[in-house]
């Protein structure tokens, strides 16, 4: 399968990339989502802007109280990086469960976010961990909270002129921890999530002071479950409190039936994995 013909540029700097970008262009980083779509001819951009040769985008760094993941950081690096595992364990785990070995060697965390698949793992972890998405274009830079970045099915908040140049994660403070768990389409943790959930919690004096829980694979987009988080806040984090909070998992979710499960089954899985993610996060505090 060949994609349709396209023009190709590999700019040496972000500034050059911004100039090339437009309505008929697509950004290529790892290509693990974009190239299959092009081969299936579901997408036929006229211009591919390959950012893969731009220096300085492939590192994970700590600065100003944040962990910054550059646009060319691969899933395998996100999964194993000590800064990520220490400060955003949910994201490291989600990255380790993304695709397969070969996909994790090529695909990028930022690319997965920009692609905004409804069943991708890392978007849920980014939302739960309170990530900030850094979008840059020729006209400047703006920061978008992860919870508002995933707009709809395969649609992020990025404009065609923008590149997701980095993702910023807050450093974990005392009493804070996060976790991710899923059921994959091929069973276990393999492949896209039939249902996956990420949870971030902050505990102090034995009580849950703050919580963010996000769901993927079940609804029309990876999304923050505000009802679950607020139900957990003020509780003691016991199994009973987790069960009570997970009952809110579908409060604002339109469950999509698909090849992998009925509405009823996926709704059930959502509650199961929301509970598991919260338990794992609470146990990790």
């Amino acid at each position, binding site marked *: 399968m060949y994609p*349709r*013909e396209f023009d190709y540029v590999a700019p040496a700097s972000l500034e050059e990339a911004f100039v090339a970008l437009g309505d008929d262009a697509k950004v290529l980083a790892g290509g*693990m989502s974009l*190239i299959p779509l092009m081969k*299936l001819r579901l997408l036929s951009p006229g211009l591919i802007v*390959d950012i893969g040769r731009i220096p300085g985008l492939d590192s994970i760094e700590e600065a100003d109280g944040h962990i910054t993941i550059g646009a060319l950081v691969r899933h395998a690096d996100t999964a194993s990086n000590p800064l990520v595992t220490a400060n955003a364990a949910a994201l490291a785990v989600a990255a380790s469960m993304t*695709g397969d*070995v070969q996909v994790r060697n090529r695909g990028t965390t930022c690319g997965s976010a920009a692609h905004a698949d409804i069943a991708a793992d890392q978007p849920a972890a980014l939302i739960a961990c309170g990530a900030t998405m850094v979008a840059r274009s020729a006209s400047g830079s703006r920061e978008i909270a992860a919870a508002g970045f995933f707009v709809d099915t395969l649609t992020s908040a990025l404009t065609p002129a923008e590149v997701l140049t980095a993702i910023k994660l807050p450093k974990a403070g005392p009493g804070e921890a996060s976790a991710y768990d899923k059921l994959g389409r091929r069973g276990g943790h393999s492949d896209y999530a039939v249902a996956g959930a990420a949870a971030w919690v902050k505990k102090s004096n034995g009580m849950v002071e703050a919580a963010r829980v996000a769901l993927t694979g079940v609804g029309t987009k990876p999304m923050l479950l505000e009802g679950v988080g607020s139900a957990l806040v003020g509780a003691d984090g016991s199994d009973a409190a987790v069960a009570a909070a997970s009952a809110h998992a579908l409060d604002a979710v339109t469950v999509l039936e698909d090849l992998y499960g009925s509405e009823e089954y996926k709704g059930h899985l959502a509650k199961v994995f929301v509970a598991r993610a919260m338990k794992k996060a609470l146990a990790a505090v």
Partner: protein
Amino acid sequence: MEVSLTVNGRAVTSDVEPRTLLVHFIREHLRLTGTHVGCETGYCGACTVHVDGKAVKSCTMFAVQADGADILTIEGVANDDVLHPVQEGFWERHGLQCGFCTPGMIMSSIALLEANRTPTETEIRHGIEGNLCRCTGYHNIVRSVQYAAAVMRGEEPPPPDWET
């Protein structure tokens, strides 16, 4: 567009369309047909090669992205007539039936063993999760990788299942 890369230690330069996939470049421009095209959607792993030492699916990468890269394909893993230990393992432990997935399986297994000299059975199964086999049920593939792991550590391989 002109691309220059190293394939199995040999420098090659060629003119390709931007849409040329790396696997087609390897098979059709270089005539190295050991790398297989299976599903074409990124799932099956039959097209697995090493790019700068990492296992990747060459059907999901454009040749232009590999400009300047060092590529290893199944044709480059044996040392003249001496099979790579992973190739030897697939031979000794019957790790293939139809053989279509085998080049990709071997490339993924080599990458796994280069990163982890002592993988458990679970780690081997996870290490080849990106490679599908429709014949073997994976059992003998896992035994083949265990054989290779032992040989690469300089140890006696475990006896075959049919002798135990």
